[in-house]
């Protein structure tokens, strides 16, 4: 065992800033990466949840003729 106390451990022989700076940023990045992927996935799943009901219509969407005639409702 190299360390006689926690303080010594955190001091890292005077190089604490450098050593812990490296490790802290590394773990921050790793955790950040994981969180970002999870977030990307959650937004995706949420979006799918929203269009859940329109699945059939969504996959069968072929052209817009119908939509155009729908669209001709009075405006002004």
């Amino acid at each position, binding site marked *: 065992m190299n360390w006689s106390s926690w303080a010594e451990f955190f001091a890292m022989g005077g190089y604490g800033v*450098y050593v812990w700076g490296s490790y802290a940023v590394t773990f921050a990045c790793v955790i950040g990466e994981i969180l970002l992927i999870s977030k990307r996935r959650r937004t995706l799943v949420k979006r799918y949840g929203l269009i859940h009901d329109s699945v059939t219509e969504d996959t069968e969407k072929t052209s817009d003729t119908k939509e155009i005639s729908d669209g001709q409702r009075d405006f002004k």
Partner: protein
Amino acid sequence: MAINWYKYAAPASFYSLAGKMIPFFTIIAFGLLVAGLYIGFFVAPTDFQQGEAYRIIFIHVPAAWMSMFLYVVMAFWAGIGLAFNTRLSSMMATAIAPTGALFTFLALWTGSLWGKPMWGTWWVWDARLTSELILLFLYIGFMSLQAAIDDPRRADKAGAIIALVGVINIPIIYFSVQWWNTLHQGASVSVTQAPTMASTMLTGMMVMVFASWMYAIAVILKRVRVIILERESNTAWVAELRRKGAF
């Protein structure tokens, strides 16, 4: 529905396979990480030249190795995707890039933090450092190009071309930088290495390298699953998943 099942089969089955593999790699990565950190901080002795600062090695070297290794893997998958038009391999390449860039950044970051106490400066224009910096640019170029293109098919192919051109260039860059630097002999410092590395140090380092690999695999699989979902959103099998709510 005239959707070609053959084409969609691969990502669909890979999606669930990857889902099963992720926990496995995550657990191994975590175990190795704990072991590596334990060896690194509590078993490995103090270096007689560098004091405790050398303990940065346990993340610096894995990060530096992974950064280079992942680039090659990325270019490989991208090339396969370009040559055989297999979408899954292109998605793999896309998924690898951010992790590769992350490791490159970490190599630079930890290297700088190591350099300050050892060399007295955050940065020198040393050959190895410079080529690592260029590697970061290559990753970023790949990612920005893909981000700038909306059509995924085009993004895959364009990314593949730049990745392959980059991979041809990496040795050229590496050697030219080496030559540029040594010809000049300006900077008196270079990456110094502990003369004889204690075997526990080496063990700790290698354990951390394996931990990084496992982590990279897990995280890349996780990302590739999201990418598959995004890209295949209008296929029957995703619709099926959606109906069941079983992502």
